[in-house]
């Protein structure tokens, strides 16, 4: 066990997969000698060489397209978007080529597209976005977002070993803020499996990414009010772990859906539909969504602070729900 940041955990996961499988390689902008804008790939060029840590021109569509080409030939490319906001530039290759390949002619595309997403660092509208819903909506893609260092390492390994295109969203707010003891050496956290991050019996908060910590913080403070909160960390956003979600509904009967992405047609809407379709009779209160409002992410600190869902909002909703 060693104390490791969320960022370092991703780096370790990449490193070990590169050691394990010679078909794994990295490609992206400024990832080589510079080590990436956030230094996730620091030192990897020196160790693995230019054939496996490939700097590219600023051409997201070509990065993903070339990744797809290498993947169908049996390689396992891991592509970095310098910021996940720029994944929009490669949308066509991702949703039309990669996502639909296996359905059309049975050809697998073992590809990972990873990079920093999310707000809280005053990045403004173009360095703070949460693009998960576009991709979770696209059949053929898997979408992952770890919240802990343990999961970050285990999930990046699972994503690399998966035979499908995986969008791997790293939360930049967590990169250096989260430090945990994690096991050294190989372990995998399977895709499609959520986690009960905290057991509770009065109500459940279903969340992922940096909002896990907002949920846990609220849960802790609600202890003083005798409200016992369960927290589910989804980890994989597509495909969703319905068993884990529905078990928690059956246990606590009251649900808050919390995410940093905007509200309309966000993950919360899908989760609410699943719950009302499959566990309606277990519900003892309304399904409450807490999300960012439907607007771009603002830059100025007071605007961004109000924009991002906060502990106070979660506690208010929990009190309201607990009263049912």
């Amino acid at each position: 066990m060693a104390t490791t940041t969320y960022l370092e955990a991703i780096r370790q996961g990449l490193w070990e997969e590169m050691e394990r499988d010679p078909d794994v390689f990295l490609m992206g902008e400024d990832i080589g000698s510079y080590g990436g804008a956030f230094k996730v790939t620091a030192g990897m060029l020196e160790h693995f060489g230019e054939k496996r840590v490939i700097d590219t021109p600023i051409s997201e569509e070509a990065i993903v397209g070339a990744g797809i080409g290498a993947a169908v030939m049996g390689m396992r490319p891991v592509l970095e978007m310098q910021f996940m906001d720029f994944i929009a530039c490669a949308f066509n290759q991702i949703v039309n080529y990669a996502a639909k390949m296996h359905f059309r002619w049975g050809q697998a595309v073992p590809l990972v597209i990873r990079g920093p997403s999310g707000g809280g660092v005053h990045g403004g509208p173009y360095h703070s976005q949460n693009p998960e819903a576009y991709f979770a909506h696209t059949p053929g893609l898997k979408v992952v977002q770890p919240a802990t260092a343990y999961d970050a390492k285990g999930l990046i390994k699972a994503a690399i070993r998966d035979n499908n295109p995986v969008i791997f969203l790293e939360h930049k707010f967590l990169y250096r803020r989260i430090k945990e003891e994690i096991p050294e050496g190989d372990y995998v956290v399977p895709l499609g499996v959520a986690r009960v991050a905290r057991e509770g019996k009065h109500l459940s908060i279903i969340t992922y990414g940096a909002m896990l910590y907002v949920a846990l913080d609220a849960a802790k403070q609600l202890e003083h009010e005798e409200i016992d909160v369960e927290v589910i960390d989804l980890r994989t956003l597509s495909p969703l772990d319905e068993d884990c979600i529905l078990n928690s509904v059956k246990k606590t009967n009251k649900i808050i859906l919390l995410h940093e992405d905007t509200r309309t047609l966000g993950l919360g809407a899908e989760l609410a539909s699943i719950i009302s379709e499959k566990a309606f009779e277990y519900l003892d209160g309304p399904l409450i969504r807490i999300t960012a409002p439907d607007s771009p992410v603002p830059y100025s600190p007071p605007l961004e602070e109000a924009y991002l869902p906060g502990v106070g909002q979660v506690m208010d909703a929990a009190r309201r729900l607990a009263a049912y």
Partner: protein
Amino acid sequence: MYYFLRLNRSVDERLGNLYRQGKVVGGLYSSLGQEGISVATAYALEKQDVLGPMIRNLGATLVRGFKPRDLFCQYMARSSGPSGGRDCNLHFGDLNRGVMACISMLGALIPVMAGIALSSTLRGEDRVALTYIGDGGTRVGDFHEGLNFAAVKDLPLVVIVENNQFAYSTPVTSQMKNTRISDFAQAYGIFGTTIDGNDVLEVYNTTRAAVARARQGAGPALIECNTFRMRGHAEHDDAKYVPPELLEFWKKKDPILRFERYLFNNGIMTQAEQQTIIDRITRELDADVAFAESSPLPVPAPCGTALPGVYAD
């Protein structure tokens, strides 16, 4: 023009100080050494033209009538900044001043500026659109689609490539095989040329001619300005990957000092006149920094609700 060159540099310096004091909320992207391009190209336009600055084209926004206080407020995320604290750095515009706002996604502005040029052609106006892109940014597909679109429609679009040799940590030679970016003009069948981007007069004269051609209906132009990024990608970046001898070499080619020498040698400006300009800038910037520092931060929308203005009325 000398006033704006100096102003550009001084605003940059003040922003650097504010950044080091922790008062700039986000990243700061310096234009040191590239001021001549922003200022001289903006000077080559007429009032009705539209200019699309990228994040290092601070000087171009000053020429178009934005004030230093707008930039200070914008970088410090104050409510009185041109985006009211909603967006950062040079991400703002005002079409009354003929300024179109950029987005972070490199290249995306080129087709949009082609569209501004298209509207001019469709309505029979004599408006020219001018925009900028870095060497790295030219590797995005939008650059090529936008340029080709403007070419086949003979649109009045002038694209200034600031070839400052580096895109973040990546040297231009790792971005492309043929590093003479103006050669793309030939590929798209439009006018193209490569010039010394640190020679203010050459930039002005070349742009002025390209703008005039475009205005007469002779189609787009691609002007590659060779220059150098004298600081890191942004202030957080110490740019250790840039060889110091390159910085030394380019420091000697500083566009403002060269233009100063020209003005002195030709008796266009005296030392006393220069001092007057510098004093005026110091006074203005003292006032504008103070204004920005005392400007309030924006007021958020009530918890859980969107700020107004996501949609137009």
